[in-house]
């Protein structure tokens, strides 16, 4: 990328955000403005996708709310994201957990964990 653009956006890329990865159960604290009041809203769920880099980086969190699947895409560097808590660690075998979308009930939030490390290729 152009070094000038890098410099402009570098100041807005967050460096102090709790690290998390796809498959983690997270609680995303976002600032919400209502009129002139500001409060913090929490969106808890599983990170199912993580895309982009630099200022454009974003991630998708999926949760089941009253029996209905809800997905929300957060821009990672948004000043509206106050903090991210990682509740559950996991090691899924893939980068995008879109297979959770077709599921219902308890299975809907159960991230499949990779059982073994892939053998090293010669």
């Amino acid at each position: 990328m152009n070094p000038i653009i890098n410099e402009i956006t570098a100041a807005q890329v967050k460096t102090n955000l709790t690290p998390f990865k796809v498959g983690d159960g997270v609680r995303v604290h976002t600032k919400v403005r209502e009129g002139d009041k500001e409060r913090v809203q929490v969106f808890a769920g599983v990170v199912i996708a993580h895309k982009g880099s630099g200022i454009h980086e974003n991630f998708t969190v999926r949760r089941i709310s009253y029996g209905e699947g809800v997905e929300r895409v957060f821009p990672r560097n948004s000043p509206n994201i106050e903090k991210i808590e990682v509740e559950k660690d996991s090691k899924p075998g893939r980068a995008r957990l879109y297979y959770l979308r077709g599921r219902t009930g308890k299975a809907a939030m159960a991230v499949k964990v990779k059982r073994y490390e892939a053998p090293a290729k010669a």
Partner: protein
Amino acid sequence: MIATLLGKKIGMTQVYDAKNVLIPVTVVEAGPCPVVQIKSVETDGYHAVQLGFGAQKPKNASKPETNHAKKAGLETTPRVLSEVRLTGAADVKVGDVLTVAAFTEGQTVDVLGVTKGKGFQGVVKRFRVAGGPAAHGSMFHRRIGSVGMRQTPGRVWKNQRMPGHMGSDWRTVQNLRVVKIIADKNLILVKGAIPGANGDDVIIRSAKKAKKA
């Protein structure tokens, strides 16, 4: 004050504004532009200033260019020269340097430039003609179709949409908001897209049809 600068399109990115809204912006390196020549009604028949931008390597600059710049007291020869028409006599003098200080954050600007060249294109890309069905033996995919009627008028209307050269046109994008100015690096961030590829020369000026506050 002349609120026109020559510049270079750096590229697009996004920035968060004061309300935490992510805004698409184009980064323009604008100026510093030295005033190279002043034209007036008495000598040239019209009022204008000639601005310069960038620098040429001495080996690439022609003698007339070099001496023209020298006459204005410049050490380097500008890569680009462009005139800005004025309605009255210029309030700047030769050797003055115009910078991004001519603009303020929040104001609207027009950006002029040459669009990306697309070469010889058909009507589907060039004029957004719908084209025909892709399959079912249609044999009429991206063709132009009918271009007129019968014996009356017996000719093809002017401006009938046909294949031809697309792009490389001089275009103006009006009323773009200045999101941010980085004065020490001569950068202006305007909201939205502007003509041309990254690295192309552009002209940035205060909006001619700005909404009155």
